[in-house]
C-alpha cells in the first residue's frame, strides 16, 4: 500500500536549515582556515567536514533524513570556505611587500572586495555551463567529490561497505599521525636513503593516504599523470644534468650538488614548462571541446525552455542568470581596476582621471576575465583528473599579466591575483560538489543557486580576517617574518609561508625574472599534446611537471594498484570495496589533518 498524502513528509533539498547550517559552518571554517593557513602554510577543504557535521546536525539532531539536503549543506559550507585558500595565498603578500615598500601600505578595501567578489561570482558562473562537459561527458573522477558522495550515501550502503570505509579512514588516521609525529618522513626518498640515485633522479614517495586514495579512485585514467612525472624526472632531469645545462656554482659544496641540481631543474626548468603546458593544454582543450560545450549550452537552453512550458523546475540555472551574473562580475572587475588606479586612489575620481584610467582598466578587465576563465578550466580539469590544484602557478601568471598590463602596479596585480585564486578555487569546488551531487542524485540547479547566492560571503570574511590579523596597536606587521611574534619566535607567530612564496615571485617579477620562454614553449607543447586522442593528456602531463615527483609517483602507485585489482577482481569489487576504501583514505586524512592543525594552532606550536 502506498503512502497516503497525510503520511508524506517533505524530502528537503534546497532548504532554509541546510542553507543556514551550511552558512554557519562556512563562516567558521573560513575564519579559522585563514588563520591556520597563515600559520602553517596550507589551506584545507571543507566538504568532508561539512558533510559529517551535516549528518550530526541535520540528520542526527534535527531528524531530517535527506541525503540531498546534506549535499546542499556541504555545497554551501565549502563554497564559502573555498575563498579562504584563494585569499590567503595572495593578499598577505601585498602586506608583506609593504614592509619594505611604503607605497604599498593601506591597500584600498573597496576595489579589493570588488575584485574578490567578482572572482568568486565569475568562478561559479563560468564553470556551471561546463558541468555537462566535465561531469557528464568527460566523466572526470573528482576523487574528493566521490569520497564525499560515498560519505553522504553511507546510511544506505551495506554494513560491509561501511566497514571498508571505516577501515580506510582508520589506516589514514594512523598514517597521518605517524607522519605528523615525524616517525615517518612525509617524503620517503628511497634513492637518497639507499644511495642508489642522486636527488635529481628521485625515487621518492609522498606518504599521504589521501594522495594514494585519489590514485586508487582515478585508476587507469590517472596513469598519464604518473607517466608524465616519470618522463620529467627520470628522463628530462637526467638529460638536463648530464648535458651540462645546469652549471653548478663553485661555492656549492660537493655534498650539496645533488640538492642544488634538483632544485634548479625543478624550479627553473620543469615547473615553469609544466605551467606552460597546463595553459596550452587547457586552451587547446577548450577549442577541441567546443562542439560538446556548445551542444551542452544548447541543451541547457532547450531544457530551460521545456521546463518553462511544462511549468516544471529546470535542472540547471538558466543561461540568462549565468550571463547576467558574468556581466555583473566583469563590471565589478572593471570597477576594481578603476579604483585601484594610483591617480584615482590619490586624487579621487573625476572625469579626466577616469578617461586616463580607462584603457588600462579595460585591458585589466578583458585580459583578467579571460585568464580567470582559462585558469578556472585548468584547475577544474586538474582537480577532476587528480584531485590536485595548480593554484599557485596560475596565480603567478595572473599577477605577471597584470604586472605588465598595469605597468608594474603591484597592488592591481595582487588584487587580480586574489580574484583569480578565488575564481579558480570556486571552479574546482563547484565542479567537485556537482560531481558529488550527480552521484547522490541532487538537482544541479539547487546546488548552483545555493553556491551563487552566498558567493560574496567567503571573500568578505577571509579578507576581513587578514586585515584584522595585520593590525597591531603599534602599527608593526601582524604576521609574516617581520612581525614581532615571529622575530621573537613567540607561539603566536603567523609566518604566512604561502604569501612569502608569492612575495618572492613578485620581487622576481620586479627584477624582470619572468619565465616567458618556458611558459610559451610549454604552452605550445601542451597544445600539440591535445591532438592526441586521450582527453586531458596535456593537463595531466603539465601537472606532473609542475608538481614534486614524490606526489606523482605515489599517486601512480595508486593507479597501478587499482588497475591490477580491477583486472583480477572485476569492476564490481572496485565499486563495492575499492571506492569506499579509497574514500575512507581521503576522508580519514582530511579529518585527522584538520584536528591536528587545530590542536597545533591552539597549542601555539609553529
Amino acid at each position: 500500500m502506498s503512502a497516503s498524502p497525510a503520511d508524506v513528509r517533505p524530502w528537503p533539498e534546497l532548504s532554509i536549515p541546510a542553507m543556514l547550517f551550511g552558512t554557519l559552518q562556512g563562516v567558521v571554517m573560513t575564519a579559522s582556515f585563514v588563520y591556520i593557513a597563515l600559520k602553517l602554510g596550507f589551506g584545507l577543504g571543507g566538504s568532508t567536514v561539512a558533510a559529517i557535521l551535516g549528518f550530526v546536525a541535520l540528520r542526527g539532531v534535527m531528524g531530517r533524513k535527506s541525503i540531498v539536503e546534506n549535499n546542499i549543506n556541504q555545497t554551501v559550507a565549502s563554497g564559502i570556505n573555498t575563498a579562504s585558500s584563494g585569499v590567503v595565498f595572495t593578499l598577505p603578500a601585498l602586506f608583506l611587500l609593504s614592509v619594505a615598500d611604503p607605497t604599498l601600505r593601506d591597500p584600498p578595501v573597496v576595489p579589493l572586495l570588488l575584485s574578490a567578489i567578482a572572482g568568486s561570482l565569475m568562478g561559479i558562473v563560468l564553470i556551471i555551463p561546463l558541468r555537462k562537459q566535465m561531469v557528464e561527458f568527460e566523466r572526470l573522477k573528482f576523487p574528493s567529490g566521490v569520497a564525499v558522495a560515498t560519505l553522504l550515501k553511507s546510511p544506505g550502503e551495506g554494513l560491509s561497505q561501511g566497514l571498508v570505509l571505516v577501515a580506510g579512514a582508520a589506516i589514514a588516521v594512523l598514517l597521518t599521525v605517524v607522519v605528523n609525529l615525524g616517525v615517518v618522513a612525509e617524503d620517503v626518498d628511497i634513492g637518497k636513503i639507499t644511495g642508489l640515485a642522486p636527488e635529481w633522479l628521485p625515487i621518492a614517495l609522498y606518504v599521504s593516504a589521501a594522495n594514494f586514495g585519489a590514485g586508487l579512485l582515478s585508476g587507469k585514467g590517472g596513469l598519464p599523470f604518473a607517466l608524465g612525472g616519470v618522463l620529467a624526472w627520470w628522463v628530462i632531469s637526467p638529460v638536463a644534468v648530464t648535458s651540462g645545462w645546469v652549471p653548478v656554482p663553485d661555492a656549492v659544496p660537493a655534498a650539496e650538488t645533488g640538492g642544488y641540481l634538483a632544485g634548479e631543474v625543478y624550479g627553473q626548468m620543469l615547473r615553469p614548462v609544466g605551467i606552460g603546458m597546463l595553459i596550452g593544454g587547457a586552451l587547446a582543450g577548450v577549442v577541441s571541446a567546443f562542439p560538446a560545450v556548445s551542444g551542452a549550452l544548447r541543451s541547457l537552453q532547450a531544457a530551460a525552455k521545456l521546463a518553462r512550458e511544462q511549468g516544471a523546475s529546470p535542472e540547471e540555472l538558466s543561461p540568462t542568470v549565468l550571463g547576467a551574473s558574468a556581466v555583473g562580475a566583469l563590471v565589478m572587475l572593471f570597477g576594481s581596476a578603476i579604483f585601484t588606479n594610483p591617480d584615482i586612489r590619490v586624487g579621487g575620481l573625476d572625469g579626466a582621471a577616469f578617461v586616463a584610467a580607462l584603457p588600462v582598466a579595460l585591458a585589466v578587465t578583458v585580459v583578467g576575465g579571460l585568464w580567470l576563465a582559462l585558469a578556472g578550466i585548468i584547475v577544474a580539469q586538474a582537480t577532476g583528473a587528480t584531485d590536485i590544484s595548480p593554484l599557485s602557478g596560475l596565480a603567478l601568471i595572473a599577477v605577471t599579466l597584470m604586472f605588465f598590463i598595469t605597468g608594474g602596479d603591484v597592488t592591481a596585480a595582487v588584487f587580480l591575483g586574489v580574484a583569480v585564486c578565488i575564481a579558480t578555487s570556486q571552479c574546482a569546488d563547484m565542479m567537485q560538489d556537482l560531481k558529488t551531487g550527480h552521484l547522490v542524485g541532487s538537482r544541479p540547479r539547487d546546488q548552483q543557486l545555493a553556491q551563487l547566492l552566498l558567493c560574496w560571503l567567503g571573500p568578505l570574511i577571509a579578507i576581513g580576517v587578514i586585515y584584522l590579523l595585520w593590525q597591531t596597536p603599534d602599527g608593526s606587521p601582524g604576521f609574516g617574518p617581520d612581525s614581532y611574534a615571529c622575530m621573537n619566535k613567540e607561539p603566536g607567530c603567523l609566518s604566512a609561508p604561502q604569501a612569502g612564496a608569492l612575495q618572492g615571485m613578485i620581487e622576481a617579477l620586479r627584477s624582470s625574472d619572468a619565465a616567458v620562454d618556458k611558459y610559451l614553449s610549454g604552452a605550445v607543447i601542451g597544445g600539440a599534446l591535445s591532438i592526441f586522442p586521450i582527453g586531458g593528456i596535456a593537463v595531466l602531463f603539465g601537472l606532473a611537471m609542475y608538481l614534486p615527483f614524490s606526489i606523482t609517483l605515489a599517486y601512480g602507485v595508486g593507479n597501478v594498484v587499482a588497475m591490477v585489482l580491477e583486472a583480477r577482481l572485476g569492476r564490481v569489487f572496485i565499486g563495492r570495496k575499492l571506492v569506499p576504501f579509497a574514500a575512507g583514505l581521503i576522508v580519514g586524512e582530511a579529518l585527522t589533518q584538520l584536528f591536528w592543525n587545530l590542536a597545533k594552532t591552539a597549542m601555539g606550536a609553529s
Partner: protein
Amino acid sequence: MKGNIGLALLALGIVVSASFAARNGARHTAYRTAVGEVAHTEGAAKAEAQAVQADIGLPPPSQRLQEWFAVGGLGWLGGLVLIVGGAALARMQQAEDNAGGEEGAAGRVDFPGTITAVRERLAEVTTLIADLKMDADSTRPREILDDVRADLIEPLVDGRGQLIARHGLAGFAEYFGTFSAAERNMYRCWSALTDGHSVAAREALATSLVAFDACLAQYQDVDRRG
C-alpha cells in the same frame, strides 16, 4: 600497431620537446649560476641577488625568449614534430578501429540494447516500490539499482569513446546529456529510498525512465542522420 607507434613517438616527442623547452638561454644560465654562488657563500639574501642581477643583467622577456630559442629552439621543434606525428598515427588507428568495429577493452558498446536492459531492470524497481510505504525496507530495490549501475551504466560510460567516434562530439552530446540526467535521477531514487521517502523515490524513478526513453530516441535520431 599504429597506435603503439604513435604512443612511442608521443613519449619521445614529449621528452625531446620538454627537455629543450626547459633549457635556459646563455645569459639566464650565467645569471642563475651567479645567484647560486652568492646564495651559497653569503646566504640567500635578496639584496645580494639583486646586486648580482645588476652585474650580470638579466635579459628582458623578449630577449630571454630569443636566447632560449637559440639554444633550445631546434630540439624543441623536433620534439613537436614527433608529438604531432604520434598523435596523427594514434588518431588514424582510432578511426580504423571504429570503422572496422573493433571491440577494444570496453567491448562493443550497444547503446540501444543497454538502455533497453536498463529499462527492464528499472521496471522491476517500479513494481517493487509502487506500493512501498514511507520508511519501509527498501533493500531489494536499492540492490537492483546498484546492480544496474555496476553491470549496465558503468560499462556504457566507460565505452563512450566509441560513441564519440561514431557520432562526433556534437552528436554524442545530443543524447548523452539526457542519458546522464536519467542516470542522475536513478541515483536520486536510490537516495530517496535510503532516506525512506518512497514518494520522492517514485517521482525520481519516473523522471529517470522518461529521460532514458528520450535519450534512446535522441540516439536513434543522431544515428539515422549518420
